[in-house]
């Protein structure tokens, strides 16, 4: 009787390890992508109709067509989101064609990182804004949104979709820092006392995986804003 109980507990403990390492991420990762995708489709159907200012390629032309001129506009800068308030969906073609993870305000685990996905450091820039936009997400467990952060190639697109359109950033470089290196969040990352001179994106996650000893940081710089009316940008195309 006692032996059977202990064996059962051992099996459940092993199951938890398997869930934590693999099974849970399959379940939660697929759920996150599905929710992100449906949000993205919801924005597409409720989007404002194309206006005259929305460029020549707004109707009909396939976004992937290389002859289509790249449509850009002055980015719409959103207000700071509330804690746990979803404001965008992140697409990173390098992380797979189905990757669509919601972004919300705040970087606490109970409010944002565990239940939603990607958290926005309060007070840092919003997409398309001058300065540095900083976000964080799990690299392991909870659907592991930033699991492949170490595999980004220079120039890879990081696209944030909002009801207004798509903000494309291009990956530049990785850095490994100590957990207290808040300088990575400065308007110009790692430059103390320097005023904002560009539009940057800082992504932080844990390093090594399954550890809290260090942080991995990925820096990107802003490339363009594509209004909703112009259709999905070419930066969303699959990469090889």
């Amino acid at each position, binding site marked *: *009787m006692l032996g*059977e*109980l202990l064996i*059962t507990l051992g099996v*459940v403990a092993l*199951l*938890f390890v398997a*869930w*934590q390492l693999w*099974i*849970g991420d399959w*379940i*939660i990762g697929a759920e996150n992508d599905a929710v992100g995708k449906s949000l993205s489709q919801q924005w597409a159907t409720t989007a404002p109709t194309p206006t005259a200012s929305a460029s020549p390629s707004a109707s009909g032309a396939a976004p992937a067509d290389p002859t289509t001129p790249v449509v850009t506009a002055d980015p719409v800068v959103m207000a700071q989101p509330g804690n746990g308030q979803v404001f965008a969906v992140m697409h990173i073609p390098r992380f797979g064609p189905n990757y669509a993870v919601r972004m919300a305000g705040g*970087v606490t*685990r*109970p409010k944002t*990182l*565990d239940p939603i996905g990607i*958290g926005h*450091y309060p007070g840092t820039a919003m997409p398309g804004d001058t300065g540095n936009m900083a976000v*964080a*997400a*799990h*690299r*392991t*467990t*909870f659907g592991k949104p*930033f699991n492949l952060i170490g595999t980004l190639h220079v120039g890879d697109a990081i696209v944030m979709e909002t009801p207004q359109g798509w903000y494309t950033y291009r990956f530049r470089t990785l850095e490994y*820092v100590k*957990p*207290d*290196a*808040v300088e*990575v*969040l400065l308007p110009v990352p790692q430059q103390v006392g320097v005023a904002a001179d560009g539009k940057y994106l800082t992504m*932080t*996650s*844990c390093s090594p995986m*399954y*550890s*809290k000893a260090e*942080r991995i*940081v990925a820096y990107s710089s802003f490339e363009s804003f594509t209004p909703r009316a112009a259709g999905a940008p070419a930066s969303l195309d699959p990469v090889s």
Partner: protein
Amino acid sequence: MYAALWRILPGPWWVRVVILLALAAAVLYALFWFVFPWVSTIVDPQDVTVS
């Protein structure tokens, strides 16, 4: 414990096996979708932000 469970299940052996498989599936579902996600918020030793 499992011998007692086998005894109280009704029907021939193959009906009992089917019931047991259904029970196991229900237990796994509860663990994977509800219990483990909750445990994970408590024990998970990781931190992804700088502060």
